[in-house]
């Protein structure tokens, strides 16, 4: 699938579960750290909520802020972004560039009225399977607390 198809694909399945609403969360994670961390969480059989759809990208520096904006435009309830810890980037400095962009994006989203709880950024390394599970758990709870996203247009 092209990146456009990935981000415009409507999440389905658990949208209409028996007890009503379940949050739809998209996660953009770096191939070298967080994706491997997620893998570790899986192989260690750690439990975390199934609401997250993971999109693997080569580096957090690859995450175009428009991916995140597009996710909100399409009505995702939450967006998680994660990459290698500062100083540990596979490409030496991709995450430093990402950090500036993400900081600004976070500010502008909040400014435009998207609840800050709907966006989360974290550094998760390949060894932090436990942290990955915890972050997803905590973020899903957080999104549940703010409730369904009414969309960017109202």
């Amino acid at each position, binding site marked *: 699938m*092209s*990146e*456009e198809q990935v981000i415009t694909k409507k999440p389905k399945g658990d949208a209409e579960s028996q007890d009503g609403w379940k949050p739809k969360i998209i996660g953009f994670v770096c191939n070298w750290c967080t994706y491997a961390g997620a893998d570790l969480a899986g192989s260690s059989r750690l439990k975390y909520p199934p609401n997250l759809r993971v999109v693997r990208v080569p580096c957090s520096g690859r995450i175009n*802020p*428009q991916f995140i*904006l*597009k996710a909100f*435009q399409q009505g995702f309830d939450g967006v998680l972004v994660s990459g290698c*810890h*500062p*100083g540990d980037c596979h490409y030496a*400095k991709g995450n*430093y*560039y990402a*950090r*500036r*962009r*993400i*900081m*600004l*994006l*976070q*500010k*502008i989203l*909040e*400014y*435009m*009225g*998207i*609840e800050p709880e709907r966006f989360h*950024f*974290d*550094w998760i390394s390949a060894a932090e399977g436990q942290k990955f599970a915890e972050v997803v758990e905590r973020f899903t709870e957080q999104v549940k607390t703010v409730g369904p996203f*009414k*969309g*960017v*247009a*109202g």
Partner: protein
Amino acid sequence: MEKALRQKARELLESGSVRLVIGYEQGSVPFKCTPLFAETPEEAERLIWNPTCVNNLAVYLPQVISQGKVAIVVKPCDVKSVVELIKEHKVNREDVVTIVVPCPGVLNLDGLNGLDLRDVKSVQWGGEGIIVECSSGAVELARERSFLSKCLSCTIGKAPLADIEIGESPIRNPLTDKHTCVAEYEKLSPAERRMFWARQFAKCVRCYACRQACPGCYCNECFVDKKGQMWLLRATDPASNWFFHTSRMMHIAGRCVGCGECERACPMGIPLTLLGTKLDKEVEEMFGGRAGESPDAPPILGCFEPTDPDPCPE
């Protein structure tokens, strides 16, 4: 003033040191100007400099610079756009000659409301603000009514990149603070803010006038025009409009010099500078730099410091 400007432009063209002078000439009505592209000394005689010269002419630079050296008439605030273009290697420093004109502020067309526009003969600086010469006599407009809001909060001192300076730049005495409107807006709750933009962007007809007027929007192919990777539909639904405007803002983040051309060009009156001003403020607070200050500084989002603020401090 106009005389000195024409004289300079004439000299530059006659000596052959520039191929083209970009400036302002009288528009079809006395209260509007239109850009002038003077290639001969005779054409340079049509240059004007008065309160109607609102456009940021730097927007034309990337299109004309490849054909030879260009001189451009710029207000001290427009110089920042030229600085950004040099910084981003769209324009070579040696290919551009800036002619900085002294600017007390430029005309806010809304200030003419209530006057019979057919009657207007000329618009000139005078008194505290602007004097509009009508056939029935002169009308003096106060500063608050005459000038664009960016001019009322202007604190620009010396232009960072002035090759030729015409006259003395007036001393700034800002009436308002440009961050006031941001602070005012920030009093709204998140839901109210979302509604605010939903209403604003519902008006958007996606004519892309904001993009065309922006000196920072020079991409050969804008993301909205891409066909292979279709970021958004051509139709104007409020959510797509939201995506367009927020994406554009992220593209000009750290590069926006706050010239306000996007808002001025908008036929639907969307307050786009409310976003640009906020970005400018955040960029300065977080990364300690501002767009358009020095041509030697790296682009703000194209560099980093290991000590940058962290969205997830350890």
